[in-house]
């Protein structure tokens, strides 16, 4: 039997070593199917790295992919800090995209310096509203937010599909279920020449800095941390747990909503119901890999984006399915979770007969 004894102290170094080690273990485990497919490991991983960072185009693609991940990752990190398990990033992402479309496709004509902020705010607000509902139910009736937020994802996606077939459908789209294009004044400009990486990246990086300041330097961030770490003591100390929870939900939802806005007005220019390949869910992995640190979220977003972009490129070159990317990401999360347990406990082999009473 193996016995686990909790460690009294978790060293600070561990919080950095653990995710890096987890990633390395994940890459090692993912090499098993690569080997089974008869590939040379160095060549395969080399191609992945080149595909993600090997050229200006590759780097642009990686950061383009990282942009929404940073925002959904921050969304998860803020909520999880307050121990509010928001699994609904995907739904809030689509609500944000919807908000951008409603405001940004010509309903309002205004100069760019008014319209662009307006679109961002509309999307953030839509995302926030989408999470305040479940948060209110939790504070009021103690409903399980994992269930409500998760199920809302499907409801919202179907709602978006319905709108894209109806009210929001672009009459010029030749029957495709997509929205009218965003007007020029509401678009985020590209950052470098003709590459796809766009100003949404700056929004995401700004949000990361904002979240860092929020968590570390504001009274609200203090309350959020206190409620997350020990809601009983927080309540006893006069902090309103429900109000803090609602704030956490609003901020989290707004960040996930911004991710949707950024994809619509930075990359695509219009909304389709397949605009997100699961950014909302990937944000959870991003946040966990980052240990909920906002700066860590930026790093882990770039890593996960690189895995996806690199795997695409590798699969084009040597014909291995790009599902290898999903595998690496999933394994990384599992390794981080296992690593977290390993960091908190000491394992002891008790012999086969050692029995607990």
């Amino acid at each position: 039997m193996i016995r686990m004894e909790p460690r009294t102290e978790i060293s600070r170094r561990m919080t950095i070593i653990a995710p890096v080690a987890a990633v390395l273990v994940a890459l090692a485990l993912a090499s098993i199917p690569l080997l089974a497919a008869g590939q040379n490991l160095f060549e395969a991983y080399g191609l992945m790295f080149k595909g993600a960072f090997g050229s200006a185009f590759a780097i642009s693609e990686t950061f383009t992919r990282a942009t929404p991940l940073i925002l959904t990752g921050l969304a998860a990190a803020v909520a999880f800090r307050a121990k509010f398990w928001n699994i609904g990033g995907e739904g809030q992402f689509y609500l944000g995209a919807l908000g951008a479309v409603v405001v940004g496709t010509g309903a309002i004509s205004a100069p760019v310096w008014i319209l662009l902020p307006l679109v961002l705010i509309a999307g953030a607000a839509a995302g926030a509203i989408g999470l305040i509902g479940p948060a209110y139910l939790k504070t009021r009736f103690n409903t399980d937010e994992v269930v409500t937020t998760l199920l809302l994802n499907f409801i919202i996606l179907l709602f978006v599909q319905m709108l894209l077939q109806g009210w929001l459908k672009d009459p010029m789209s030749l029957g495709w279920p997509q929205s009218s294009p965003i007007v020029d004044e509401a678009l985020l400009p590209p950052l470098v020449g003709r590459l796809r990486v766009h100003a949404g990246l700056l929004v995401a990086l700004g949000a990361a800095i904002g979240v860092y300041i929020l968590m570390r330097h504001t009274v609200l961030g203090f309350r959020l941390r206190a409620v997350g770490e020990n809601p009983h003591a927080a309540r006893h100390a006069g902090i309103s747990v429900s109000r803090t929870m609602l704030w956490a939900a609003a901020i989290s939802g707004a960040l996930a909503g911004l991710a949707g806005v950024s994809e619509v007005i930075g990359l695509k220019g219009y909304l389709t119901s397949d605009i997100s390949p699961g950014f909302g869910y990937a944000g959870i992995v991003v946040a966990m890999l980052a240990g909920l640190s906002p700066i860590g979220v930026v790093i882990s977003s770039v890593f996960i984006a690189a895995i996806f972009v690199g795997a695409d490129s590798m699969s084009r070159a040597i014909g291995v399915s790009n599902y290898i990317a999903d595998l690496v990401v999933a394994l990384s999360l599992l390794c981080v979770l296992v690593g977290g347990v390993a960091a908190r406990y000491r394992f002891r082999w008790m012999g086969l007969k050692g029995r607990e009473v």
Partner: protein
Amino acid sequence: MSAAKRTSAPEAGIELPVILELDNITKRFGPVIANDGISLTLRRGEVVALLGENGSGKTTLMNVLFGHYVAEDGEVRVAGKNDNLVQLAPGSPQTALEAGIGMVHQHFTLAENLTGFENILLGVESLFGLARGRGAARQKVQNIVRESGLAVDLDIRVSSLTVGEKQRVEILKALYRDARILVLDEPTAVLTPQESEGLFEIIAKLSAGGLAVIFISHKLHEVLAASHRMVILRGGKVAGKLVTADADRTMIAEMMVGRSVPGSKRSAMAPGEIILKFDGAHVDGVDARRSLHNASIEVREHEIVGIAGVTGNGQAALAALISGLVKPDKGSVQFLGERVSKFTPKSFMDAGIGRIPEDRHHDGVVGAMSVAENLAIENLEDGRFSSNGMLRFAGFREYADAMIDTYDIRCSGPDAETRLLSGGNMQKLILARVLDCEPKLILANQPTRGLDVGAQTDVHNRLLAARERGAAIVLISEDLDELFALADRIVVIHAGNLEDAGAIENLDRTSVGLMMAGHQDEARAS
């Protein structure tokens, strides 16, 4: 008060055979040495008290004995056949049980929905045996009950037994497994004084019958009443071994703490204005523990009102009410002569009510946050700690430095993680936070639970100083010594009812104890 009659220690001349020997036990947890070369012998029919403050290594030692931990060094030897000492295989609770070591934990391990009899058989008899061999088993249990005097109805569900009765079932369970060595871990923590005395009588009877008992406690008067010998631990080492007949309280206390401990002195003071008044306050809790029935009470300036009662009799509801965590379903609460209409922790703190919660880890501090953050947590919006919603770290640090200094909070600094503090220092942190605001009313709920003697005295002196300053204090405690040392008046709480016992000068422990048991026990006792 009368201590239970102490049976005479085994005569010095007739050395009874040694039944258990702990030899030079050393157990480390990382850099911490929890047990440092501890040796202890136990003879048949002997009651040895294991005394020590929290963190002195009592529990670790017993976990080594019971096979939950493996010691780095040292041996446990138990008498086998012909009284030969045989080494016990380390790390195996099963062997410890088979060797006849029985343990009654502080928190009982009974299946609530089975009867006492079924609980005793559970795990010993096979599942078929539970149905078939009941006759023989029942005979054996009845014999044990007759010999030990552990009378309890074994045919009703455990959930309807009192705490004291459950403890008897636990002891019977150990005896049924032919325990020759019985370890009682803080057995009186949940008992009324009368129940404790009953327990001591049973221990005396059992040891006279040859059972060896290790009695873990940190309450001096109990140890003096119930043991033959005592082993005192301090900081993981044996600080002293005494024969109980030769020991006195100051001597033991000094060994436990390692220095002399002056007691707290309460000076007579005339109570002033009424600060807090309950008028038929009623709280319907989810269970009896959290309910309060029609409670009326007055607490004045310069007055400490002690709430005496066995844990789980409505103290939680009373504390929640004074903390602003619940509002009364009926009746009223008046503070400074005005009826309170808003019941939130924040409004209570703003009004000048300081609260020391019962469970400091659970309600008192956020363990993962720093000392400075926990000191400021109740006053975040104060100009010292924030402006325009932004935290002022300089203010945090300055305040924490001052509090660490004034209240002697031992930690590595304002940034130390609070969960790493010892219980006593964590309590000092809470005291600093509460008392520094000079509250008009202080709720002190079990303020010294789990603290060592030195830290206890410190808490007592701080509370007395607050009383001197003019604060009204509600002191909830299950420790009669503490109440008699601090309180001006005693109010007894039983089954959610408050009953004023009057000024401390007119009270003795026996009468308070009877009231704590809810009177109906009075007839049984007399």
